[in-house]
C-alpha cells in the first residue's frame, strides 16, 4: 500500500492567523459568561491580541517563507499589508466601545468578528494560490456582512448587511468564475505557475479563456475595493453600518482587495499587463471622477466619506494602472495612511453623533472649532490629509501614486488625478467651514471623550502627520515590500 506523503508544512507563515483565530474563538466562548455591562473587557482583550499579532507579523519581515506547498507565503508584501489590517482593526476596536455603549447594542460578538475579518484579510494578502485568496476573501466577506448588519435594532443597519451580502455574494461568484477560467486556461491555481504557464503562451492576449478569466477576476476585485461601476453598494452599506464598522470597512477590506489584486495581476498575469493596464486606466478615471462628483452633493457625513473612499480607491487605481514599482509602493503607502486618516475622521464622527445615528449631517459640525479646539484640529488634520495637502501623509501618498503614473507615461491620468484631488478639496473644506466659520446650534450637547477614542485619535493624528513630514521610513518599507512581486 502506498503511503500518502504529507508535504512538509511550516506553520510560521500563518502563525498570526492561527493566533487571531484561536483568540477570536476563545472570546466567543468567554462572551457567553461575561455580563452585558462588562463587554468592553472583551474589546480590551482583543486590542491586546491585535498588538500581539502585530508583533508576530513584524517579526516575519525579511526573507520569504513559503508553506502549504507554496499556497501561502510570508514575505514583505504580505507583512506590510498585514500591518495595515492590524492597524485598521486596532483603531476600529478602540472606537467601537463608546459607540456600542451609546447605541445600547450587545457588542460581545463584535470583537471576535473583527478578528475573524482580520484573519480573512491576512490570508488574502499572504495567499499565493487563487484558492487561498478566495478562502481569505470569503472569510473576510462573511464576517463583514455580519458586521455591517450588526446593529439589529436599526433598520438601516439591517439594510446595509443584507445589501452587502447579496451584492457581495454575486461578485464573489464572478471572482470564482474568473478563477475557474484562469485555471482552465493555465491548468493551475498557483500564482507563480499561472505566470509561468501564461508566459509560455505565444500570444497570451489571444487566449480567450485567460483574458475572460482576468476580466472576471478584475470585476470581483473591483467590487471589493468599490471601484466604479461596481461601487453601488458602498454608500448604502457605509451609511447603514455602525459607524466604527464603516470605519473598519473603509480601510481594511479595501487594502485587502488591493493586496490580492496586486498579487494576482502583477505576479500571475504580468504577460497581460498591457491589457489590464488600459482597463485600470479607465476604471481609475471613472472611479475618481464619479466618487468625487457625487461626494460634492452629500449632506450626510458618512455618505460623503463613503463616496470619498470610492474616490480614494480611484487614486490608488492610478498607481495600479501604472503598474511600476513607484505606483505599487504608492498603493502600499496610501493604504496605510488612508487607514489612519479615515478611521480618525470616523472617530470624530462618532463623538459628534448621537444615539440612533442622529447628528450625522455636515451641519452638525458647526462651531466645533472653538468649542472643542483640540478635536477640531484633529479633524482638520484628517480632512487636509484626505484632501492631499502638504505636509500630511495623504499628500505624500498621492504624490507617489501620481509619480508612478507620470513615470509610466500616463500624464493624462496624472492630470485627471490632480484635478480630482482639487475638486475633492471642496467637500472636505465644507466640513472645516462648518467647524470654524459657523456658529454652533443652541442644543449642542457634548459626550465625553473616552480613553480608547482619545488613544485612537492620537494614533490617527500621528499616523496622518508623521509620514507626511518624514515619510522615508515607511516609503522604504513599501519599496522593499514590492521588490519580490
Amino acid at each position, binding site marked *: 500500500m502506498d503511503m500518502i506523503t504529507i508535504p512538509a508544512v511550516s506553520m510560521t507563515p500563518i502563525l498570526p492567523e492561527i493566533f487571531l483565530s484561536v483568540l477570536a474563538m476563545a472570546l466567543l466562548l468567554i462572551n457567553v459568561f461575561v455580563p452585558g455591562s462588562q463587554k468592553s473587557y472583551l474589546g480590551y482583550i482583543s486590542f491586546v491580541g491585535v498588538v500581539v499579532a502585530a508583533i508576530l507579523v513584524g517579526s516575519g519581515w525579511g526573507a520569504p517563507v513559503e508553506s502549504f506547498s507554496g499556497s501561502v507565503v510570508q514575505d514583505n508584501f504580505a507583512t506590510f499589508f498585514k500591518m495595515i489590517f492590524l492597524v485598521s482593526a486596532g483603531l476600529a476596536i478602540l472606537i467601537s466601545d463608546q459607540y456600542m455603549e451609546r447605541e445600547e447594542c450587545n457588542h460581545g460578538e463584535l470583537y471576535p468578528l473583527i478578528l475573524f475579518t482580520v484573519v480573512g484579510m491576512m490570508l488574502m494578502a499572504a495567499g499565493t494560490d487563487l484558492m487561498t485568496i478566495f478562502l481569505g476573501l470569503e472569510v473576510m466577506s462573511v464576517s463583514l456582512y455580519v458586521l455591517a448588519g450588526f446593529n439589529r435594532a436599526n433598520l438601516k443597519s439591517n439594510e446595509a448587511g443584507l445589501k452587502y451580502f447579496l451584492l457581495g455574494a454575486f461578485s464573489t461568484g464572478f471572482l470564482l468564475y474568473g478563477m475557474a477560467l484562469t485555471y482552465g486556461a493555465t491548468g493551475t491555481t498557483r500564482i507563480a505557475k499561472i505566470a509561468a504557464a501564461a508566459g509560455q503562451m505565444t500570444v497570451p492576449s489571444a487566449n480567450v479563456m485567460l483574458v475572460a478569466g482576468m476580466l472576471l477576476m478584475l470585476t470581483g476585485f473591483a467590487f471589493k475595493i468599490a471601484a466604479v461601476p461596481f461601487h453601488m453598494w458602498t454608500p448604502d452599506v457605509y451609511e447603514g453600518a455602525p459607524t466604527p464598522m464603516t470605519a473598519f470597512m473603509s480601510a481594511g477590506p479595501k487594502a485587502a482587495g488591493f493586496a490580492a489584486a496586486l498579487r494576482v495581476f502583477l505576479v500571475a498575469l504580468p504577460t497581460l499587463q498591457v491589457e489590464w493596464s488600459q482597463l485600470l486606466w479607465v476604471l481609475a478615471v471613472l472611479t475618481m471622477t464619479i466618487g468625487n462628483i457625487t461626494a460634492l452633493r452629500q449632506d450626510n457625513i458618512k455618505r460623503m466619506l463613503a463616496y470619498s473612499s470610492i474616490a480614494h480607491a480611484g487614486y490608488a487605481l492610478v498607481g495600479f494602472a501604472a503598474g511600476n514599482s513607484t505606483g505599487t509602493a504608492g498603493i502600499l503607502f496610501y493604504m496605510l495612511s488612508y487607514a489612519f486618516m479615515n478611521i480618525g475622521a470616523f472617530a470624530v464622527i462618532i463623538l459628534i453623533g448621537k444615539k440612533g445615528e442622529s447628528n450625522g449631517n455636515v451641519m452638525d459640525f458647526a462651531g466645533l472649532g472653538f468649542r472643542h479646539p483640540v478635536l477640531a484640529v484633529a479633524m482638520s488634520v484628517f480632512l487636509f490629509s484626505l484632501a492631499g*495637502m502638504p505636509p500630511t501623509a495623504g*499628500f505624500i501618498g498621492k504624490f507617489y501614486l501620481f509619480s508612478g503614473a507620470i513615470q509610466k507615461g500616463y500624464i493624462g491620468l496624472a492630470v485627471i488625478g490632480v484635478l480630482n484631488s482639487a475638486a475633492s*478639496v471642496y467637500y472636505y473644506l465644507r466640513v472645516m467651514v462648518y467647524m*470654524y466659520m459657523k456658529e454652533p446650534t443652541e442644543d449642542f450637547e457634548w459626550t465625553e471623550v473616552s480613553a480608547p477614542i482619545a488613544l485612537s485619535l492620537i494614533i490617527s493624528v500621528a499616523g496622518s502627520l508623521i509620514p507626511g513630514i518624514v515619510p522615508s521610513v515607511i516609503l*522604504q518599507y513599501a519599496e522593499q515590500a514590492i521588490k519580490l512581486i
Partner: protein
Amino acid sequence: MSDHLLSLTTFLPILGVLLLLFIPKDSKGVLRGVALAVTVVTFLVSLPILFGFQTNADFQFTENVPWIAAGPFAMHYNVGIDGISLWLVILTTFIMPLAVLSTWTAVEEKVKEYMICLLILETGMLGAFISLDLFLFYIFWEVMLIPMYFIIGIWGGKNKIYAAVKFFIYTMVGSLLMLVALIYLYFKGLNAGFTDFGLLQFFDLRLDPATQAWLFLAFALAFAIKVPMFPLHTWLPDAHTEAPTAGSVILAAILLKMGTYGYVRFALPLFPDAAHRFAPLIATLAVIGIIYAALVAMVQEDVKKLVAYSSVAHLGFVMLGIFAFNTQGITGGMLQMLNHGVSTGALFLIVGFIYERRHTRLITDFGGLSKQMPIFATVFMIVTLSSIGLPGTNGFVGEFLVLLGSFESSLRWWTVIASSGVILSAVYMLWMFQRVMFGELDNPKNQKLADLNAREIAIMVPLIALIFIMGVYPNPFIEKMDPAIQKLIARTKPVSMTAQQMPAMQGLPAGHPAMPGMSAPSAEQAAPAVANPNEVK
C-alpha cells in the same frame, strides 16, 4: 549659528506658535504682545542675512540636508538666498510686525488663533522664498494656503466663506498642475543623471522646445493665478475685500509676490526657450491686466476693492518688466515687487484704519475727511502718490525701469499701451482720494472721527520712510540684486540668440558693450532718446 540663519528666521515664528499655545486665550494683551515680539525678533534675526550678504550671484546662507530618500526620489531640505530672494525675505520679515501691530483693535475675538495663523503664514512664506529644492518649494507653496484660508474665512467680512473657499481651490488647482509638471521634470532629470530635486542642476537641463512649452505652461498657470494675471485674477478682489486688515496686507504685500517670484526663480530659468516663445502672450495678458484692472478700479465704490484691482494693475507692470528679459526690465520688475509690497501694504493698512473707525468702506460714505484727520490725510496722500508712481517715491523708480526695459526689448508696442496704464492709475487713485478726503465734511458720522493714534502712526512711519528712501536712493536695493539678475538673464538667453541681438537684450542700442550694475540715473543716461513716460504732473 550663521550657518542656519535662514532656517532660524523661517522657523522662529513656529517657535512663537508653540509659545502662544501656552497662553490662555483670554489674555489678549499678552497674546498680542508675544506675537509682536516674535515677529520683531524674526525681523532682527533676518537683518544679519541682509548685512552679511555678499554682492555676487551665488546662493548664500545655503543649507542642504537630505530629507526623503525612497524609491526613485531624493528630496533635500535645501535652502539659500540670492539677490532675487534676499529683498523678498526682508520684505516679509519687515511687513509682518506691522501687520501684527495693525490687529490690536481690529480683531477682538479668537485672538489666539489669529496670531497662530499669522505666524504659521509667516513661516510658510519665508520657506517658499528660500527653498532651493523643487519639492520643498511645493510643500511651502501649498502650506501657505492653509493659514490664509482660515484668516479670510474666520475673521473676514460678510462674504468671507465664499472668498476663502474660492481663494483656496483656485490657487490649489494651479499648484496641482504645477506638481504634475514638477514630477515630470524630475523624471526627465533622473534620465539625465540627476539624483534629487535640487533646483540648480535643473537650470542646465535644456529640454526640447515642445516639452519645455508644456512644463512652462503648467508652472506659468500656477504662478499666473497667484500674481494674479488677467483672466485668472477673479479670486483677488473677493479675497482682499473680505479678508481682515492684516490678512489683506500680507496677501497684497507678500503672497502676490510669490507668483512673480515663481516666474523669476523657476519658470524663466528652467524653461528659457518656452519663456521667450510665450513672452508675447504673457505680455499681452499683463498689459490687459494693467488697463482692464485700472478701468475696473475706476468704477469701484468699495475702497478696498479699488486697491485690490490696483494690485492687479501694478503686478501687470512687474510681469511686463520680467518678460522683457533685460537688465532694466527685470530690475524694474523686482523693484516694483518691493515697491508694491510697501505701498499697497500701506494702502491696505490705511483702509483698515478708516474701516475700524467707520465700519464702512464705501466711498460715498466719506468726504472731507482731511479736515477732521490731517495726519491721516498726509499719510494717505504720500502713499497714494507712491502708488501712482510720482518721481521721488519708490513707485516711480520701478515703473520707469520696467517701461524703459520693455521698451528696449521686443515688447515695444506693449510698452506703449502699458504706459497709458500709468495715467489711468493716477486717475482712479486721485479721484478716490479726492472723493474720500477732500470736499465737504457733510456726513455727520465723519465729523467726530479720531485722527491716527500713536500705534497707527508707528505702523506707518517705517513705510513712509521706505517710500522716500527707495524713491530717492534705490541703489542699495538694486546693487544687491544685480548680479543675480545678470545671471538670470544669462540663463534665459534662448539658444538661438545671435551676437547681434545680445546687446539689445541688455537694454542698450545695438553695438554698445554690456554694462554691469545699473542704477536709475545711469539708466537715464543710457537711453536719452526715450521720452520720460512718467510725467504725471
